[in-house]
């Protein structure tokens, strides 16, 4: 199913500045896996070492949080939009280090 994945601003630098990516995926999990395969640096920002989506990142299929659907097994349809919504807080002076693992 052709779907669009929206890349939030804080993560665009790891996706060659793209704001959205088109891909073909049957589930939300598939779409995210393709995204992190094409843009490897995104993986550690979206997934823990154990392969779970990080808890400060929410993923929506259209306007529904996948935690309230079938998580990454949520099936997609043509034209669906997957949005990644990380928590943002505004200007933080303290945390200045970038995660490069």
């Amino acid at each position, binding site marked *: 199913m052709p779907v669009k994945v929206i890349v939030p601003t804080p993560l665009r630098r790891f996706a060659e500045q793209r704001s959205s990516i088109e891909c073909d995926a049957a589930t939300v999990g598939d779409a995210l896996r393709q995204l992190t395969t094409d843009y490897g640096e995104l993986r550690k920002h979206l997934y823990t070492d154990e392969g779970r989506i990080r808890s400060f990142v929410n993923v929506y299929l259209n306007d529904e949080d996948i935690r309230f659907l079938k998580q990454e097994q949520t099936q997609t349809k043509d034209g669906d939009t997957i949005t990644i919504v990380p928590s943002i807080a*505004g200007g933080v002076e303290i945390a200045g280090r970038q995660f490069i693992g």
Partner: protein
Amino acid sequence: MAIPIATDTMTKAAVSLNKEEILRYSRHLIMPEVGMEGQLKLKQAQVLLIGTGGLGAPLGLYLAAAGVGRIGLVDFDVVDFTNLQRQITFSTEDVGRKKTEAARDRLSHMNPQIQIDTFETRLTSENALELFKDFDIIVDGTDNFPTRYLVNDASVLLGKPNVYGSIFRFEGQATVFGYPGGPCYRCLYPEPPPPGLVPSCAEGGVLGVLPGIIGSIQAMETIKLILGVGEPLVGRLLLFDALGMRFRELKLHKNPACPICGERRTINKLIDYEEFCGIRGEEAVPVTTGIPEISPRELKTRLDRGDNLYILDVREPHEYQICNIHGNLIPLGDLPRRVSELDSSREIVAHCRSGKRSADAVEFLRKAGFRKIWNLRGGILAWSDEVDPTVPKY
């Protein structure tokens, strides 16, 4: 469908509007959605603004203009020159003044009829409940994760709505947490990101007008809650993309397992939020034990002596354009991919703006086997202070 907010304001002694107020708020009064009844609700409302910065500025201005009877301002910061790009309550003459005082002056100039209380303090687990309890609505205009969680938890424990707004670069979010039956911040984000994973405004930058838009939306939601009109953003996360000029909405569900607002509350008091967010122990000065450092003066001495040092600048290209000390630019995010460009047999001094990113670079390169690598303590800011004042600070 509007659900009026249940507060104690209705039981307060009846208030009225004087002639001046009737004229001042006439454009409200002539609307049936507000009218005298609505304006009196505004007059009796007590709203606490956490943060008087980018979000707090338009918030304060519009709430004061609307005649909210009591506005509390919580901030411990002073006005900095770099704030003026977006914190529109402040003028150039306010630089160096306490933000609460400068904001209070500005708001009371605009509307002397209202009461403005300032709390020049850091919001902590020790003072939050006491501070919040006399207010009806809390508006979160803060800029860091620990405070976001603190504001949320204190609001939920006291049963007060928390009008939330946040921004990053050119994106913003807004919603109303803590409304009866609605979700709270923890329902959306049970855990904070580890420190440093999400860049700050100081590093990420921000379009000045963006907090103006999101802060105004927060003011609008606050006024709607007070008046009991329209549909507040309860259970709705408004996402704003300034560059695309698009608004989107995502559904926010109350999490039945939420530890503070769910069916079985396990958080009954405020916690140590800095520890929760993992920044206990992170100091403002980025000296990490084990990271070898060199001071700007030492670096200058060695360069003047003709030492064959390789200066590695790990900032971004647009920062290099602002100022540089002729280093070799490899942005931090690109370093893992471009590490082969570095010669580990040479002595390398890494620098960034303030010394934090370059500390990470040094740590990374040491793990990659580099042994002759130092971090420039304090970054190019310190270089400007201690060695060459002609290098602009930013």
